[in-house]
């Protein structure tokens, strides 16, 4: 019964990139493991200066998508272009233009904040590294923690350190997997503002995953709903719930998460809706 009400969820509005040159262009991305399809024909873009929310229930394929963009997971099909560079053809050049921060990939706890920034700065081949490290320590209020081992930092401090690392190479594309998950509301607000500024001031394209729908609504220019490895919905997080008969983004999320039939075969339901 609920499936009928969910039919509009299978519709996708056309992607609305802000700039001609995309920070990220994902086309027909697929990943299959021994007959199981983890990601199925996923295509989307992230424009320069755009913040795109990648939403979906656990196991929807968000982390699989991010891992393929980061080059640590090989797609079964499709392509990933970062700032116009195909990661399959020139991995080093593509990855030099991106960076990421995720709760499951914290910085080595046995190195200090300053050492970690030096280490990653060298990996990304940063010029004037000393200045860049000082700049980031100041920007993320980490200067007093320069010589503190990352493992000893509070979760908020660790998030700031991870974000500082993620910006060490001034990326064109920034992938953030639940960047504010472990922060108190005040710290989360500061980080959100900083990230919004990064997009608007520096033109960085940001792909953001979060389970906090209020946050997504306040930060993201566009959202993509992933479920069962497919993109079910795409649009403005402020207008999307209303367009699909939901009171809020959270309600829409819950509907998407609880509708396995819709997720399993969106095209069939789209046909049904047309009838």
């Amino acid at each position, binding site marked *: 019964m609920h499936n009928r009400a969910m039919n509009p969820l299978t519709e996708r509005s056309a992607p609305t990139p802000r700039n001609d040159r995309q920070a990220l262009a994902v086309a027909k991305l697929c990943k299959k493991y021994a007959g199981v399809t983890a990601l199925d024909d996923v295509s989307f873009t992230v424009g320069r200066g755009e913040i795109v929310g990648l939403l979906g229930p656990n196991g929807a394929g968000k982390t699989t998508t991010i891992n393929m963009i*980061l080059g640590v*997971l090989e797609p079964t099909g499709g392509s990933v272009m970062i700032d116009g560079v195909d990661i399959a053809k020139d991995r080093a050049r593509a990855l030099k233009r991106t960076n990421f921060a995720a709760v499951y*990939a914290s910085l080595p706890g046995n190195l200090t904040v300053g050492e970690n920034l030096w280490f990653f700065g060298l990996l990304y*081949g940063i010029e004037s590294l000393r200045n860049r490290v000082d700049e980031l320590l100041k920007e993320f209020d980490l200067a007093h923690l320069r010589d503190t081992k990352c493992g000893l930092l509070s979760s908020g401090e660790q998030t700031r350190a991870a974000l500082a690392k993620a910006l060490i190479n001034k990326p064109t594309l920034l992938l953030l997997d639940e960047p504010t998950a472990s922060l108190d509301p005040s710290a989360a607000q500061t980080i959100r503002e900083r990230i919004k500024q990064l997009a608007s001031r520096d033109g960085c394209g940001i792909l953001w995953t979060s389970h906090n729908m209020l946050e997504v609504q306040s930060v993201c220019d566009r959202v993509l709903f992933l479920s069962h490895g497919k993109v079910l919905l795409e649009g403005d997080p402020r207008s999307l719930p209303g367009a699909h008969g939901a009171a809020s983004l959270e309600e829409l999320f819950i509907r998407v998460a609880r509708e396995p039939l819709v997720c399993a075969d969106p095209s069939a339901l789209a046909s049904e809706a047309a009838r």
Partner: protein
Amino acid sequence: MKARPIAAIVLRQFFLLRGSPVRLFGSVVWVTIDIVLWGFITRYLNTVSGSGVNFVPTLLGAVLLWDFCERVMQGVGTAFLEDVWSRNLLNLFSSPLSISEYVGGLVLTSIMTSSLGLVMMLIVALGVFHLELFSQGLPLAAFVLVLFVFGITLGIVATAMVLRFGPASEWLMWPLAALLSPFAAVFYPVSVLPPWMQWIAHALPPSYVFEGMRSLLSGGGFPSALLLQGTLVAAVELLAAAYVYGRVYRRAVRTGLLARYSAEGAT
């Protein structure tokens, strides 16, 4: 290959040593204890054997060189495991770092840590037991180089094993050198081994090194044929190990194992 990413891997190990000097224990203290222990055993053997054979260069020299080979392997393996333990593989391989730069960094790190151990062993062996190993000069240095290359090969194989079978398989890495030692002819000639063991021994560069060493120390002249054979086997095996590592890495990227390491590394 670019120098900066390789330097980053080496610098990371330096940071770790600076932050926790106790990490040097494995590279310096254990090898020193080994040399002291074997040094006294050889002294004792010299006094009771009555054969006129000086056991110091043959036994203690062999222990020193085998220990060095083992430390080289552990240098590569430990530097890799630091990334597994700290769940850093995802951070590393989502950066522009290439697999050859990463392995290059691990090898350089191992040179740094194993050289410390070698210097320490030489000081104790020379100072306490008067083992003048390097009085043999260049020929011995050539044999040490073969052992070094083999240690690197073992290290690469060991890290490939951990990358292939998951973090828990690090326990297969530690005894690897010990498992090979009966075949490596460290303390006895290959000829005393049964034929099937001799076949394996001939596939291991250390057997040529230790045969050559014994020949050199007994005044049998420079065993150039053994050095050449050892060098060739070591070079082929190093290339094979690098190839295997590349295959294992590509498989880890294809299957998602590399990405999963961040979650599994902590367990």
